[in-house]
């Protein structure tokens, strides 16, 4: 078990390292630098800027210098927001993104499991067909359609919820729902399939034969096994929510870290982009690791750390 965790940890670091390197060299190989958009600069002035923002020397020198600064927890300066470091920018915006992501994560897992479980128990009824059709619909509509539609209905027409921005906890509700929508559907489909499979097994028949109430059979006995595929989906779910939040933050004007992605690519703000990529990847890899460690612990039949 410990060896398994250590090995996973090592491969986690490797993934992070690769992603950082790829992002760095892709960004540096793209035409145009961070100082090209300004008025024509004197060569000396440009060089001074490059030195100040660590853009001097060959790409390789920049890369090794960047890595050594990373080791000390310094993500570098931002060329767009000149008086602030990437660390400061992220410290300010990440909590907002995290709140949005966590809310969406809870909505997606809880909503999906309940909906899928309900559909499985109601097998063959119109309710099941309806629920599954709705799920497929939710998967087929991208978030940048549901977002504006929800704004149109709940914020502009009905006036129940704020249009965008970040004021009260209520203002997180629409964006979180938008972000979670397709994944509620995906998890519901996953839960339904595996629940149907489990409900047909012998130990469930035994539980029923013992005269247990149906809700106990489903929520205690069956759910314990049927939710395993859902748990293994939690890692990819986090990844998709992270990527999706870029769009949702743009639609709802939420001052989170996702907006930096597009801006920093367009502004050639190298260190800011790399900082965001590092944080997102680290989160993702850690979540995947947690799922992998929890999985065999939950399902004693699987020994993935052999």
């Amino acid at each position, binding site marked *: 078990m410990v060896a398994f965790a250590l090995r996973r940890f090592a*491969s986690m670091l*490797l*993934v992070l390292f*690769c*992603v950082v390197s*790829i*992002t760095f060299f*892709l*960004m540096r*190989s*793209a*035409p145009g630098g961070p100082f090209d958009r300004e008025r024509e600069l004197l060569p000396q002035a440009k060089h001074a800027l490059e030195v100040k923002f660590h853009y001097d020397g060959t790409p390789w020198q920049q890369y090794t210098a960047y890595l050594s600064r990373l080791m000390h927890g310094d993500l570098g300066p931002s060329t767009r927001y000149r008086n602030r470091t990437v660390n400061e920018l992220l410290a300010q915006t990440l909590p907002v993104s995290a709140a949005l992501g966590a809310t969406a994560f809870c909505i997606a897992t809880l909503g999906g499991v309940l909906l899928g479980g309900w559909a499985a128990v109601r097998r063959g009824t119109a309710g099941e067909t309806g629920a599954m059709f709705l799920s*497929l*619909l939710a*998967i*087929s*509509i*991208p978030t*940048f*359609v549901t*977002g*504006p*539609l929800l*704004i*149109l209905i709940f914020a*502009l027409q009905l006036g129940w919820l704020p*249009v965008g921005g970040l004021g009260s906890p209520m203002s997180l509700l629409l964006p979180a729902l938008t972000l979670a929508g397709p994944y509620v559907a995906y998890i519901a489909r996953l839960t339904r*399939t595996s629940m*149907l*499979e489990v409900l047909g097994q012998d130990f469930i028949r035994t539980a029923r034969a013992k005269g247990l109430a149906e809700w106990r059979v489903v929520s205690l006995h069956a759910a314990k096994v049927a939710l395993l595929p859902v748990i293994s989906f939690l*890692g*990819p779910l986090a*990844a998709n929510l*992270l*990527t999706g939040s*870029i*769009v949702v933050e*743009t*639609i709802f004007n939420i001052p989170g870290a996702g907006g930096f*992605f*597009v801006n920093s*690519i367009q502004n050639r703000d190298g260190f800011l*982009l790399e900082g965001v*990529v590092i944080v*997102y*990847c680290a989160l*993702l*890899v850690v979540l*995947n690791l947690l799922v992998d460690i929890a999985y065999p612990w939950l399902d004693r039949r699987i020994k993935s750390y052999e």
Partner: protein
Amino acid sequence: MSDAANPSAWQRLLARGGAARWSLVLLVLVVLAAVFGPMLMSGMAGEVSADQFAAPSWAHPFGTDLHGQDMLFRVLSGARVSLAVGIAGALIAFFIGTAYGLVAGYAGGKTDGAMMRFVEILYAVPRLIILLIAINAFDSRMKMWLAGIPGLVSYSRIVILILSLGLIEWLTMARIVRGQVLALKSQQFVLAARSLGQTHWKILTRHLLPNLVGVVIVYLTLTVPAVILDESFLSFLGLGIQAPQASWGSLLADGAQAINPVKSYWWLLAFPAATMSLTLLALNFLGDALRDVLDPRAEK
């Protein structure tokens, strides 16, 4: 199992009735409209006119946009780009994924372990984000590269989107194919072929591949909507298809901006959204129905 693509599978699919049949009809209609629609509409439709933000009417069933262009025309030409990217990207993913899965599953042992480890690592990377960066980095280089081929330069964004989306969407296909090959290769017909002295290449292409057709078709159908969604994600962020060309994603980006407290031009969002969602819904329905019919592991 090798009868996966024979008429009886078709009959079983259509016998499922409702959803699957309507999905097929809808998809055929969308494809026909996308291919022939823009040609049949009067030449004026795609032109910029003074008729800004006109609400839907008989002259403009989908209304007009900021530049007075007919939205029906825009949606249909967007459909061309989105469908082309979706199909071509899915095909690339299909070739890579099938080949990779076949080799990994057939080789087995350490090779398989290493190859699947690599896939797992790629799963752990936020691929669309890396893709976003890569497209931006390579775009101008791609333009230079395509400059030698006349007529292709204006399509460089589309070409680069197809290539890169194909290059990231193959992972699921590889996993599925590899799982199938693992199950198949221990079966007696493979053993028989091997003991008859057939080469690995022949076993792979003549014996294993035909047995995979069903599963592969299912996931090909499901990859197309995934690629279309990815493309629209990139275009929505302004990093995919760029004006004057349009795809569903870039139209939706324009439409989303038209929804605001002051004045909502709902038709700019509603029509591209409805067209795209219906198409994706039909593709997903079809993929699901096909999976029930063709995938031996899907329990029913």
